[in-house]
C-alpha cells in the first residue's frame, strides 16, 4: 500500500480552479518531485495536504487513514511535516528553541511539571536538548543553537526549517522549493542532505522545485502541474523528456 494516496483533489478560490483532479500516490521512502510553472498550483497542493485549505472535493489518504478535512495540527500528528516557500521561522526564538517547538509532541511533560520543575521537567528537557542538538548537527547548525533564528544567514534558515519539520517525526516531509536562493554548490550539498535525510530517517519526501538539476538528480518520480491540472506523472527521466512538459515550461 502506498504511503500517501491523493485522489481527484480539487480546490477553487472563487472562480479560479487552483487545483483540479490531482491524483498521485507516493510510496514509503520515496523521493517524489512536484514541478510546474509559476502559479501552477504546487504550493496549493501542499496547503491541501497539510490542512491549511480544505479541498472542494477529492480525498487524501495517509497510511490508509483519510486525512482530508482534518486540522493542520491533526495532520501533523498523523505524520506530515512541511517547510514553506517563503521561510517562516519562529523568528524571535533561538535556533534550538525552534527545533524544540518541533519536538513538542514527541517529548512531553505537563505545564504543571514545568512550573514546579518536577523531575519529569528535567528529564524531558534533557532529552529534548539532546535530540534537538543531534538534529541540528545533521545540518551543521549545532554551533548556532543559541542564536536568534532571524539572525541566521538565508541558507541556514532554510536548513533550520527542515530540521524543525523533521523534529515532528514525520512519515512524509514536504519541501517547498528548498533550493530557492541557493548557489550551485549549496544546491549540490542540499541534494546530498535530502538523500541523507530520506535514508537516515526512513521517510518519504515530496518536494517542489524549479531547479531541474536537483529534480532529475534525486527524485525518483515526478508529477507536473500546469494551470492547476496534472499534465503527467511518472519516472523522472521520462517525464522531463515529455514534449508536453517542455512546452509547459518554455511556452509555445
Amino acid at each position, binding site marked *: 500500500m502506498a504511503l500517501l494516496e491523493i485522489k481527484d483533489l480539487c480546490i477553487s478560490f472563487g472562480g479560479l480552479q487552483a487545483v483540479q483532479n490531482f491524483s498521485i500516490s507516493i510510496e514509503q521512502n520515496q523521493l517524489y518531485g512536484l514541478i510546474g510553472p509559476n502559479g501552477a498550483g504546487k504550493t496549493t497542493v501542499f496547503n491541501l495536504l*497539510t*490542512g*491549511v485549505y480544505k479541498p472542494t472535493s477529492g480525498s487524501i489518504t495517509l497510511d490508509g487513514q483519510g486525512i482530508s478535512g482534518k*486540522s*493542520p*495540527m491533526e495532520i*501533523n*500528528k498523523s505524520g506530515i*511535516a*512541511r517547510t*514553506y516557500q517563503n521561510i*517562516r*521561522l*519562529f*523568528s*524571535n*526564538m533561538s535556533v*534550538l*528553541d525552534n527545533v*524544540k*517547538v*518541533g519536538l*513538542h*509532541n514527541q517529548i*512531553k*511533560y505537563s*505545564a504543571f511539571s*514545568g*512550573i*514546579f*520543575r518536577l523531575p519529569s*521537567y528535567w528529564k*524531558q*528537557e*534533557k532529552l*529534548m*536538548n*539532546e535530540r534537538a*542538538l543531534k538534529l541540528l548537527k545533521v545540518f551543521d547548525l549545532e554551533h548556532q*543553537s*543559541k542564536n536568534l533564528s532571524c539572525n541566521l544567514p538565508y541558507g541556514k534558515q532554510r536548513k533550520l526549517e527542515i530540521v*524543525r*519539520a523533521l523534529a*515532528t517525526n514525520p512519515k512524509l516531509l514536504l519541501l517547498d522549493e528548498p533550493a530557492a536562493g541557493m548557489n550551485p554548490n549549496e544546491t549540490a550539498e542540499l541534494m546530498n542532505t535530502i538523500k541523507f535525510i530520506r535514508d537516515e530517517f526512513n521517510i518519504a519526501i515530496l518536494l517542489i522545485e524549479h531547479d531541474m538539476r536537483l529534480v532529475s538528480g534525486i527524485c525518483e518520480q515526478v508529477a507536473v502541474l500546469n494551470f492547476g491540472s496534472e499534465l503527467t506523472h511518472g519516472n523522472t527521466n521520462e517525464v522531463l523528456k515529455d514534449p508536453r512538459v517542455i512546452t509547459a515550461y518554455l511556452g509555445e
Partner: protein
Amino acid sequence: MRKLFLKSIKSSTRNKFSTYIMVIAFFSIAAILVEAGILGSLFKGLLVPMCYYIILAVSLNLTVGILGELSLGHAGFMCVGAYVGGVFSILTKDIITSALIRFPLALVVGGLAAGLFGILIGIPILRLKGDYLAIVTLAFGEIIKKLVQNIYIIKDVTGFHFSFATSIDTSTIDSESKQVILNGPMSISGIPKNANIVIGVILVLITLFVIMNLVDSRSGRAFMAIRDNRIVAEGIGINITKYKLIVFSFSAFFAGVAGSLFAHFSTVDPTKFDYNLSILILVFVVLGGIGNIRGSVIAAVILYALPELLRSFQNYRMLIYAIVLIVMMILNNNEKFLRFKERFTFKRLFAKKHAKEDA
C-alpha cells in the same frame, strides 16, 4: 552536548534568580529606609500598590508579550478578583477568624474567580486577532465595571438578599441584623485590611516564579511559537486553543490575585477598574519591554511611584511623567543604551565569573 545543556539551564536560572534578588533587595531596602524615617510615610503607602501593579504588569505581559495578543481588559479581571476576594473575606470573617488562613484563601479565591472569567472570555474570542481582540477585551472590562456597579447583596437573619438593579428593595430586609455586603455603585465596606508589604512581596515572588518558569518550559515555547507564527505553530502540531486558554487563565488568575490584594489594602470603588487602569498596566508592559518580565517589574515600580512622588509639584506632575515616559520609550529603542544596560545586569556580572570557571 551535556555542557551546552547545563549552560543553557544555568543562564536561564541566573536570569530568574537575579530578578528575584532584585525584587527582594528593592523592597527590603525600601522597608528599612521607611522604618528608619529616611523615606516618608508617603512612600510607605506606595509599597503595597507597587506589589499589585507589578503582579498586574507581569501577568499582562504573559498575554501581550509572550502570547502576542493585545488585551485591554486587564482591569476587568482585577475587578473580579477584588470583588470576589473582598466579599469572601467579609463573609468568612466570623467563620475563619485567623487572618493568616483567611487572607491567603481570599487571594486564591479572587484569583480563581478571575481565572474562570479568563477562560469564559477566552473561549469565544479565540479566533479573534489583533484589533478585534483588543476591542472585545476592552468591552469586557467596561461590562464588568458596569455589572459590579449594579449588584446589591444584603445579609440578614433570613439569609441573603440579592438585587441586580439600580437600587435594592429594603422592605423585606430585617433591619436589626442587616449587613450590607455590596451596595451597587458605593464602595465595599468591611473588608479586613490584611494586606501588608511582606505578603505583597511574597505574592510578587510567587507570580514571578510561576510565570517565568511557565514561559521557560515546553508550554512557554508553544506560547511564543503561536506569537511568532500561528499558522506554522499549528502546522507543527501545537494545540492553539489549549495554549491560548492556558495563557488567558493564568494571566487572569494573577490579575485576580492582584485585585484581591488591592481589596484588602484600599477602598474598593468600582469606578477604579476602568479603561484607564487597563491602559496604565499596558503602558507598564510596553515601556518595560514587550515579553520582558523583569522589565515589567521595573517599569511598574518606576511608573507607578513617579506620579505619586511628584504630587508636590502639582501642575508639573503630569508633564514630568510624560517626559519620563517619552525618555523611557526612546531609551528602550536605543541600541547603545540597550548594550549599556546589558553590561550592568546581574546576568553579565555572574556570567563573567562563570566564564572563568568554564575556561
